[in-house]
């Protein structure tokens, strides 16, 4: 069992203490995932808009191209 799976099981148990069903606990966890996904999408949208608006004259942040270049080093 992974650390997160063990913790999720424990969270279901803790939710039961307050009569929260699995669905309710899932809601709580889902909102965390939503925040992460929203963050990533916002970042990608920012890069996309910046690319369209600035073209070769980018002056802040990374572009998709920079990102691809950077990923080679990861």
């Amino acid at each position, binding site marked *: 069992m992974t*650390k*997160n799976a*063990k*913790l*999720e099981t*424990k*969270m279901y*148990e*803790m*939710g*039961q*203490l*307050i*009569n*929260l069903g699995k669905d*309710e*606990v899932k*809601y*709580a*966890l*889902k*909102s*965390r995932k*939503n*925040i992460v996904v929203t963050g990533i999408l916002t970042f990608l949208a920012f890069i996309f808009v910046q690319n369209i608006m600035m073209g070769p004259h980018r002056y802040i942040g990374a572009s998709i191209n920079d990102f691809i270049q950077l990923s080679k080093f990861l």
Partner: protein
Amino acid sequence: MFRKKVFPYSTVVELTLKCNMKCIHCGSSAGEDRKNELSFDEWVKVLSDLAELECELVTLMGGEPFLRKEWYEIAEKVKDFGMKVAFISNGFCIDDKIISNMRKIEPYTVAISMDGATSETHDSIRKVKGSFEKCQEVLKSLRSADLPTTVVTTVHKQNFKELPKMREFLLNKNIAWQIQIADPIGRFPKSLHLSLEEFYSVALFIASTRQKYSLKEMPITGAHCIGYNSRMLPNITLSTRWTGCQAGLTVLGIQSDGGVKGCLSLPNSFVEGNVRAKSLIEIWSDPEFCIYTRQFKAENLNGDCKDCKFGKSCKGGCNAVSTSLTGKTHSDPFCLYLIEKANA
């Protein structure tokens, strides 16, 4: 010395310690008024100093603030000095006249304590029969009068299981809901304090409610004592990020006898001056005031917070919870991150 300019953005004022209830979780053991409570003129001087310190919000509480004879005149003065005013009350003595006066004040919010979903629970916690019925009646009247209304629920072993049922009652009523945990100070016995797992279940409840309902349907938040750096749950408090105890930084507490402390939730040993001996401006400007937050260093962390990777930014959580449970500042064990770490 602190470099950044600090000002008491939010000041909580205990207008009187007199109270018409004897709640089991009362941190200040309210009931009788304090000997030598500040006079109206002394409060005016305090409020004038607060305005000069650029305070923006003054919350009037007690005891029961509406038992203070000049509550209206004092609230009016807060407004005259250009600050917003909020009330925290148990609602038991609120009548049409008080509501009509509150409307003139245009408060930021009127917070009413509700500690259970049934009269059996609420009345037994507040030790006054009929208080639950009155609470519901007052909430209805406040909404009818179009006053911004908040319900504050203090949770402990006797009532935390009723939160889902309370939600049913508060849903779609345009009432904000703040949930906080009872600390073992004042009248509250340690035996009724939530366990770490029960505490986590309350956080789960707030997080799932936030996800399940829109802010308009159920504007719910955890207080400053709930929820730091969770890996599994989103932020469940009002501020976007917990940056440590705000006592003496953006928050200030003033007792009805003039005693000043960084936060009214802290025990009496944290009183660092009295407005009768020194002006509030002098107390606030003293570099030694609230040294535990203003001059915080990572070395000050205690307990499990000492080796925590969030220690520097979290500063050991809520100092009121920390001192009431461990006797030390900067070591709040009621931390979502710590609980998750222990169960991973």
